[in-house]
């Protein structure tokens, strides 16, 4: 088998008697935007959690750049360049926006105590990099106006955006967004999708979980459909929306 950018093989997550993700095999090509969809309880978020190490898979493997990442802890997977956002918004509540992004840039920062205490040149240089990266992210996410606002005082939509900003600071090669626009108003939702497109242009590969079908159909290069933990379809938005099994999975509803 060729070396894909990212792949899972027979990924399975079992909670007692319930199989939440069932022998899920799929691939992501570098540079694409791929969406994972399915009815409620299909196992999308569980698959996300398994990929990012928040849940240990019961079976199967996860490969990234030809390396086996199965069973690693979340922070180790993050170090490999797979960064996620969460369905239930997670921010650092008592921390200002700008500082939050800096906290996200942990990977590129100098963590040696000796270098820090001695204020070494290397430390200064790296802190400058962190600062520059933070500035960049404030610009691309249009959060600059809110730079000194505490995360807990942001609107819901802004918190979701901050979550993406913090994830970006961690230099993702593959960014997993769990329902990034849920709870956003149409205007915020549209600009977030623009942001995701822009990120792809910068070379970040994106895996989306999203409920809003119009959004998914519009932005995705490819769609993977899960139902009861199993992959039931895969293909371009057009192929998937015409797929009989997919239509049935969504209780016979049309997908437009």
């Amino acid at each position, binding site marked *: 088998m060729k070396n894909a950018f990212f792949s899972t093989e027979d990924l399975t997550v079992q909670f007692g008697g319930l199989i939440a993700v069932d022998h899920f095999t799929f691939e992501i090509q570098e540079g694409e935007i791929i969406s994972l969809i399915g009815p409620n309880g299909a196992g999308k978020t569980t698959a996300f959690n398994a990929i990012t190490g928040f849940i240990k898979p019961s079976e199967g493997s996860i490969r990234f750049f030809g390396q086996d990442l199965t069973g690693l802890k979340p922070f180790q997977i*993050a170090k490999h360049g797979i960064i996620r956002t969460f369905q239930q918004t997670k921010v650092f509540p008592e921390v200002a926006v700008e500082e939050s992004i800096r*906290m996200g840039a942990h990977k590129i920062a100098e963590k040696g105590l000796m270098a820090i205490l001695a204020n070494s040149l290397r430390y200064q240089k790296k802190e400058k990099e962190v600062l520059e990266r933070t500035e960049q992210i404030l610009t691309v996410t249009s959060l600059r106006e809110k730079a000194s606002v505490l995360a807990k005082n942001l609107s819901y939509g802004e918190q979701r955006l901050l979550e993406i900003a913090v994830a970006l600071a961690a230099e993702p090669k593959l960014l997993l967004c769990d329902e990034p626009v849920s709870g956003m108003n149409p205007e915020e939702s549209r600009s977030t999708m623009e942001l995701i497109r822009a990120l792809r242009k910068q070379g970040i590969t994106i895996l989306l979980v999203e409920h809003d079908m119009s959004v998914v159909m519009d932005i995705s290069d490819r769609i993977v459909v899960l139902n009861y933990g199993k992959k039931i379809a895969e293909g371009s938005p057009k192929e998937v929306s015409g797929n009989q099994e997919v239509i049935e999975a969504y209780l016979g509803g049309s997908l437009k």
Partner: protein
Amino acid sequence: MKSRTSFIGYVIGIGVVALLPVVIRSEYDIHIFVMVWIFSLLVIGFNFIFGYIGQLSLGHGAFFAIGAYASALATLKWGVSFWIGLPFAALVAGVFGFVIGMITLRWRSHFFVIATICFNMIIYILILNWVSLTNGPVGIGSIPAPSLGGMAFSTKVHFYYLVFLFVLGALWFTKKVVSSPVGRAFAAIRENEPLAESVGISAYSFATLAFVISTAMAGMAGSFYAHYVTYISPEIDEFSVMISILVMVVLGGKGTVLGPVIGAVIFTFLPEYLRFAKDLRLPIFGLILILGIVFLPRGIITLPRLIRSRWSDKR
């Protein structure tokens, strides 16, 4: 502009504290101050795990005791000087902290609290019963005072400056660390652990690091205590010491650089100024502490900011 005013603030603050022994004539007051500085070292350390990581260790009294005994025994049994005893105390307490942290910080929260309480008890019982090493309940006396180049730190004023210097060093260290990426990792873990992990921060490693810093400082404080008071007994590991530390940090402002020291000063001096109340002294003290924590939940250190914001609201 702001950094300049705060720099002037530091200089004035340090100057005032440095001149205090000249102004204060009473030996007793100087003694209380020395104790305040020793406790400051202890709470600055405790603040790393409790304030910055957000994990409550109720075993810090044990690390204080470990440092005191390690330093006292090293100077008495091996005849080394205090200047070896002090880092040795930090090392021994830090190694204990590392091992305990490695085992218990994997789970954190209430598990960690209970584990540290148990550790505290184990150390207390060990000190009490390992008579051949610790002299048991009788304790260890005649612990030598430090000396430097022939000059002995024998008076209270000497100790005042010696410990104060280390408090300044500890504050500098804290400031440096918490405003660095390491401090940002600490804050990330405290604020939202899953999010911290998702950007590549190992909560386990950084919590353990904070705990080692924290326990090593407690060990240093213990060493100073032993060589200042010149007598130690298992009493120094009693649980009331632990509660005092906790109140100092919460009262002053946890997770801030200066808060714990302010807490230590107020917690130690307030009962002294309440002597006029005679029997009601401790109840009044308790009431003030409760009011302080209710009205300033983030500590006394937030008081100036609060007043300033009220002031600007009114205008």
